[in-house]
């Protein structure tokens, strides 16, 4: 699993990247009340707005951590947005992206680097 400075995570399996927001992000957001996942088939560039997550605190954009095409979206979050709080780095995934450039994933932080990054915030 790899991480961005904007608190998204990526897990690559072949050329399919599962993406979501980190446990740290979910905790900072507080109770998530609404999630808008991307449309299947949408082409994203790294850093594009990918999804919207809304908590009792604020509405936030979630950025695409990698470029590619959305091949699956976690529609279950529509009915159960609290999954993002309960299992942010597992069942609370947002989308699966067929990546166009796997090297983008390699360039992201590993967990140790992300943990170190969190210490600086």
């Amino acid at each position, binding site marked *: 699993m790899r991480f961005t400075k904007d608190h998204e995570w990526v897990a690559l399996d072949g050329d399919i990247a599962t993406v979501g927001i980190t446990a740290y992000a979910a905790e900072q957001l507080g109770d998530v009340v609404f999630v808008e996942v991307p449309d299947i088939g949408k082409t994203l560039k790294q850093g594009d707005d990918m999804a919207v997550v809304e908590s009792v*605190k604020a509405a936030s954009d979630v950025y695409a951590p990698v470029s590619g095409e959305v091949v699956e979206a976690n529609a279950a979050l529509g009915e159960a*947005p609290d999954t993002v709080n309960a299992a942010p780095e597992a069942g609370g995934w947002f989308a699966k992206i067929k990546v166009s450039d796997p090297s983008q994933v390699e360039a992201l932080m590993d967990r140790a680097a992300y943990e170190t990054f969190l210490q600086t915030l």
Partner: protein
Amino acid sequence: MTMNTVGRPTAPVPTSDYIHPTLTGGRGLLQDEALIFELNAWAKTGVDIPDADRPADDLAGLLRTTPVGLPGLSEPEAVRHYVRLSQKNHAIDLALYPLGSCTMKHNPRLNEKMARLAGFADIHPLQPVSTVQGALELIDRLAHWLKTLTGMPAVAMTPKAGAHGELCGLLAIRAAHEAGGQGHRKTVLCPTSAHGTNPATAAFVGYSVVEIAQTDDGRVDLADLAAKLGPDVAAIMVTNPNTCGLFERDIIEIARLTHDAGAYFYCDGANFNAIVGRVRPGDLGVDAMHINLHKTFSTPHGGGGPGAGPVVLSAALAPFAPAPWVVHHADGFKLVEEAADEAAHAFGRMSAFHGQMGMFVRAYAYMRSHGADGLRQVAEDAVLNANYIKARLSDVMSPAFPDGPCMHEALFDDEWLDGTGITTLDFAKAMIDEGFHPMTMYFPLVVHGAMLIEPTETESKQELDRFIHALRLLAGAAKAGEVDRFKGAPFHAPLRRLDETLAARKPRLRWRPETIPPLAAE
């Protein structure tokens, strides 16, 4: 002597300290109140309408047979229902209402008296203009005051609220860019501390929004602004004073950089009450700014009446102002309505008619009763009151920007609550128990656990001292570890703490009957 041995006891009897929940849901003399649809008033009616002197069924089979579904309360029932609901609400007529960024100030009763004059209150937008000359003159005079106070050459009077004014301003900017062959500009810059309406308005107009970073002292980061201004930028939207309650001291430079990049400067005028009479936005290089009449000029908020958000415009944007507007000719006042010569470049209109007449009357009454010197004092007293609060609370709470004075609102963060286990939300709820409406919390988003206090100029020192005293006591209790006082609060309000998460996840936006009620008896 005569001795009454059966009446009320004359000696005090010991009272119990035991506090128990009430049996009915009432509190003190406040009764629990259901929704009006839940008052079991389906089968009756509060009015006695005489039988019509025509055939009962004149509708050729169209007579409604299904229930209308309206409760038939009598007048005293209806009055009590709404008065009881109002008792659960907080109002500026009850006490200080220190919501930062909202400017909840007293609504002078003189405004109300003027707004009820028949010549203003009982007219219709479609009356011949010859019969509403006085009303048009008032709009014209109010427009003159707004232009004079802001140092701007034009004003669009028709927008119906602050955010509607933002929309008007950006539509004028878009029209100006299109007219100047700059229609390709698709980006609007907003600071991270912006009111949420700013990026929302830009997105609604079709622009994409890019954030401008903030400096450590709570102002626009000039270097970041300069880096992001480019040939794609249509406008910047900056609030001044900003939502941290701070004056953007580089405002002239912000305007210069913006204009040099070919963009327009939209100023969110929500906080104009802090500078009215002291600073003219036109002198700062502003191209468009809305003025919330319900903030700076004391017209009522929300349930007190509709909003009004006139937009002042620079010479560059003035030709694109929306119709209609009032003009004065030798034969009197008239409204420019059509896209003829006078309104050839108007981008369209923001509302069907001339704007919120009732609010115009109130705002104008406020201006005339204060005078130019009084309006200047409005700004000065608003700033003085906020700084008094900041100074009196800074030793027990942590000001977000401790250096230098604030403008009309005092902003604290939650650093002073570190280690207490108490959050900004808990603290705000405990304020309710002490009889004070909380300040704005968790806004602006750039400050951790923000508490934004705007006392306004209409509060006396005595009232400010009572508020400060309550906050100091609560701060002391928080630091003394009285966590229970905060975690369960409010204990004394008509309702205890509500489940905001559930309300957001599963909102019930409409009341629905469990069964179709029977048709009210005739």
